[in-house]
């Protein structure tokens, strides 16, 4: 049992809606904001490739729900120690955000538990957000009952960012962390480093820490030294 206690069911502080670079995803974000406030659709499914911001948005919904004094919980199914028990009675919460549904595809117990949980949430009138890498029909789920329910609500695809948008997203993140990222340095990162947003944000964090420590501005030579490229 003790290993299960290490579950990170908590939220990243900086995963908020204000911190999310909208690009072409503004409809999805508006719908999620409404959901978190208890005013939108009772169920939304969002999907997009890794780094498209699924987890960020689900956590942002939990943060907003908290601000609105609504109870919420974030359940990342990719956490290996989790068992379907986690879903028991969670329909008492106003908002439940289930992330990484791909992780449980073809697991009979999980699929059934999620199906029943969906029904319970619907019955209790609370809000459920589920996210995965693929649209419901392509998750490889075995339980058709679950697939049809996921496809019943509003489904949003999170579109990947263009290079231009990635740069803007990096600058926004840097700005919120209180340092400046020039176009030049940003473009350098995009050209030379892995280009998915998760890794780019991680790099940005490394750079931020390094520049604080070394008391130096983020210039290309400095970035080269830190990242060893």
């Amino acid at each position, binding site marked *: 049992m003790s290993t299960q206690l290490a*579950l990170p069911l908590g939220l990243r502080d900086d995963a908020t809606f204000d911190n999310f670079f909208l690009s072409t995803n503004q409809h999805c974000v508006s719908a999620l904001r409404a959901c978190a406030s208890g005013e939108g*659709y009772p169920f939304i499914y969002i999907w997009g490739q890794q780094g498209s911001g699924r987890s960020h948005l689900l956590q942002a919904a939990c943060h907003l729900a*908290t601000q609105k004094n609504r109870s*919420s919980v974030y359940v990342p199914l990719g956490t290996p120690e989790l068992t379907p028990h986690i879903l028991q*009675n*969670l329909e008492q919460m106003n908002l439940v955000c289930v992330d990484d549904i791909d992780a449980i595809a073809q697991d009979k117990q999980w699929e059934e538990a999620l199906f029943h949980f969906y029904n319970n949430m619907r019955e209790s009138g609370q809000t459920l957000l589920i996210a995965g890498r693929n*649209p419901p029909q392509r998750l490889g789920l075995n339980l*058709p009952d679950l697939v049809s329910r996921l496809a019943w609500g509003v*489904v949003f695809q999170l579109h990947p960012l263009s290079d231009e948008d990635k740069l803007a997203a990096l600058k926004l993140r840097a700005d919120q962390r209180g340092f400046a990222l020039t176009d030049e340095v940003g473009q350098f990162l995009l050209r030379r480093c892995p280009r998915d947003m998760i890794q780019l944000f991680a790099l940005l964090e490394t750079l931020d820490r390094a520049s604080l420590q070394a008391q130096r501005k983020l210039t290309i030579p400095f970035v080269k030294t830190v990242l060893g490229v």
Partner: protein
Amino acid sequence: MSTSISLWQQCADHLQSELTPQEFNTWIRPLQVELKNESICLLAPNRFVREWVKKKYFDEIIELFKRFTQGNPPKLFLEEGTTIVSPVMVATQERPKAQSSQNFGKASDLIPDYQNNINALFNFDNFVEGKSNQLARAAATQVAQNPGVSYNPLFIYGGVGLGKTHLMHAIGNLILAERPNAKVVYLHSERFVADMVRALQSNMINEFKRFYRSVDALLIDDIQFFAGKERSQEEFFHTFNALLEGQRQVILTSDRYPKEINGVEERLKSRFGWGLTVAIEPPELETRVAILMSKAEKVGIVIPYEVAFFIAKRVRSNVRELEGALKRVMANAHFTGKEITTEFVREALKDLLALQDKLVTIENIQKTTAEYFKVKVSDLLSKRRSRSVARPRQVAMALAKELTNHSLPEIGEAFGGRDHTTVIHACRLIKELQQTNANMQEDWANLLRLLSN
């Protein structure tokens, strides 16, 4: 007693001021308080919450209890559970006597108050009828008008999202409209199982039995989830018998024909077939269009016929996906303020349509049909004309015409270079056989389901 509750309140208030709102909401707020003699029991909704609270907050809670009671705290426990005994069976309260001359309705004399779970939004008026569901609908209406008398049990089966649950609620609503005092209970089979487990844990199994055996109409959804749950099946078996003997109505749904439900006892399966068993098939094109128009109208949005036709032609699998597609279109229209046209829909449902088109190809149809009839794809494309190969080939051709936009010559070409008149012949023949041959009807429906899910 009230002091104990206010003590917990005091404690919770303190924790709220100390923890981040997120922590408080996730871990402390879901806890329920139960008073046992002189002690207080905190109930966590599940094992995870209990373990987490135990490790992270329990010591502090004990400290707070000590502090707020000047060192004389009540005993404190932390367990997994809920104070809600059963979502269906709640409180006990006498209800007015039912006015009924038949057996049906008598159960409502002096019964405890309960939650019927019938959704008022699902009724017969907003159930869109088509060829695929008219038999089920007619049977449901009959049962609702003469509960316990006409067909008992009524067993409705069919694929996901075709309206089984809708019909069930419609029956419940009609029974209640005609006999407001009737005790009608709808629940998902999982809820029956969960309720039973809870009743066993809290020593209330007799109340549980009494409750379910006292209803006028019991509506249990998705009975296939009883599979492998022997204790629940046993209990349900007795409930079922008691209800039927007392001429109370039982209505069941499942995703398949009673005999095909795996993991359910034979004696139960055979009883499922005692009354009337009706199927709901996937809706045909016209019905899908009608469903879309009706759903849109219900929320006050007019969508042009050709738009409904465009969506219905492409989303074939089930009503839920049809509704999902419509919701997306309406959400997009709401956000963009644009008019709903075919072009707009094509854009809004781009990924979904790509998915459907990708799924239903001639190759896919050949593969699925061959697997279904246990022949080889190469047989379907070969010159062989024995019945065991020719029939599956004809079915596959008819499916290709129904499900893809390929021309008849293209379909003929894809089946080993056959003439388009051969395709026409196959389509006619299969259509005829569906009318006259029950097996063909079943095979066709199964294949449609396989290909569009």
